[in-house]
């Protein structure tokens, strides 16, 4: 078995007496799409926050690419190569589509403490940003204000921003939330194209999409991982069916 890219080791988080993350141990292997599923209230959002550095775990370790990142801040984790999308789309609405991505490019290429030259005229930044936009099919939208994009396009833009940071791991928090059927199809096709080049940790409610995309699935129930395995193994797992599919048979 290959060395995992991301390893969660015994993560615990309590809010008051409620154990929201109750000893989660999980490996994401290089090159795989690893999905986390679980019913509402299973603690998925908190887990994501712990991985990205918004919430500090009470106990346990997060190891990313061989380094312990448990105490690093959100920006420091991003610089280490952990890119994320947000459950609620997070873009700079007042910026153009291109500038949204160019910001991410500038964050990884050279210092952002440059005070003189107009950033919009930095050809290298714009070229790299266009490349990322091209990957998600938004190249023809580059000049538009990002706030005017459709919901699905904003989702794609957020992906382009994440790609532009040249991440080693993409952490996608419900990328399909709020998308219509057509948009969902387009986004699933996009993620399918990306799978060859990226390692992805996917949290998603849309079971069809998860079963179509994931290499492995971990099932989170009441803060614990009750099963990890291939799509087929998870489908067949009795405990999963009882705890999860029984409640929510989508």
């Amino acid at each position, binding site marked *: 078995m290959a060395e995992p890219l991301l390893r969660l080791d015994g993560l615990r988080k309590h809010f008051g007496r409620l154990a929201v993350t109750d000893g989660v141990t999980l490996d994401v292997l290089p090159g795989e799409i690893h999905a986390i599923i679980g019913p509402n209230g299973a603690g998925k959002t908190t887990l994501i926050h712990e991985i990205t550095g918004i919430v500090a775990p009470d106990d346990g370790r997060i190891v990313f690419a061989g380094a312990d990142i448990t105490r690093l801040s959100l*920006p420091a984790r991003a*610089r280490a190569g952990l890119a994320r999308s947000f459950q609620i789309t*997070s873009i700079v609405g007042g*910026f153009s589509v291109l500038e949204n991505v160019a910001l991410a490019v500038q964050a*990884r290429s050279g210092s*952002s403490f440059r*005070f003189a030259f*107009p950033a919009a005229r930095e050809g290298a930044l714009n070229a790299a940003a266009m490349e990322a936009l091209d990957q998600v099919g938004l190249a023809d939208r580059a000049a538009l204000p990002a706030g005017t994009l459709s919901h699905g396009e904003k989702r794609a833009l957020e992906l382009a921003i994440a790609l532009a940071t040249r991440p080693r791991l993409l952490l996608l928090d419900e990328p399909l939330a709020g998308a219509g059927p057509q948009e969902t199809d387009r986004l699933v096709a996009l993620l399918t194209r990306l799978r060859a080049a990226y390692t992805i940790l996917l949290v998603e409610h849309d079971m069809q999409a998860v079963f179509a995309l994931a290499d492995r699935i971990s099932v989170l129930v009441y803060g614990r991982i009750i099963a990890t395995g291939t799509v087929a193994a998870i489908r067949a797992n009795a405990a999963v069916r009882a705890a999860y599919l029984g409640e929510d048979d989508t």
Partner: protein
Amino acid sequence: MRDIAVPVVVLVALAAAPWLGFGGSYETTLMARVMILGMAAVSLAFLVGGAGLVSLGHAAALGIGAYAVAILDAHGITDAARVLPAAIGAAAIFSLVTGAIAIRTSGVHFIMITLAFGQMAFFTASSLAAYGGDDGYTMYSRTELAGTRLLENRLAFHYICLAALALTWAVCAMLLASRFGRVLRAARENAQRVEAVGLAPYPFRLVGYTLAGAMGGLAGFLLANATEFVSPATLSWQRSGELLFMVILGGAGRLWGAILGALVFVLLETWLAQQMQHWKLVFGPLLVLSVIFLRGGLAGLVARRG
């Protein structure tokens, strides 16, 4: 295009004014006030509109710059090569230290904390008995430039103020367009997004806050030389409120709006004060009405027309 055109028109008008019958002592004094407060307002517009940092203590930077000139004057130091860096440096250091704490907070906390730090500077100035205390301090002379009394010359001073205003505006515009400014602008709208691409907004905001303080210090240097007098009123919180009003009257988000705001503010204030003793009775309600009805400020009006 308008972002360049409007300020250039205003700056050219100010450059031509002394030759169009506005070269008298009264007019140049008034214009100096417009330009100096305009400078402070532009640097505040950079903070408010650019970085999203609504400071209600910006007059402190202005006042500290002015007090640096006065204190050095009291000790016989009037050489611009020493006075100017001291004025800018003192304001920048004050902004750096207070900003380091204030920027940890956000929203209304930030407004209140900058207000409180501004008051701290105000009370400190009031307690400086050696430099006039509450009554203020009258300078022996204006700052000397390379051994000359150039700043005493009315026209020369006019153009020095104009150059400083143009410089402040150009520097702020340059900063906002740079990589640094891009981070500030993005963080104003969505700090989480900036963090998620790997940049922590805090150091950018702190540097921006310090730079704006330095520009406030430059304006303070000129203010002390324009009036040859400093008093705690220079850094009162009312002055901070007035600067903020200039920014909003002009239209936050646009640097040139602040120049326009300063112009309208100073002219209106001067005109009203000539009409009646209790002009603030009219000015206060005007302020309230303009906030309630004139959203987007004067710049918004100009932009909608054009």
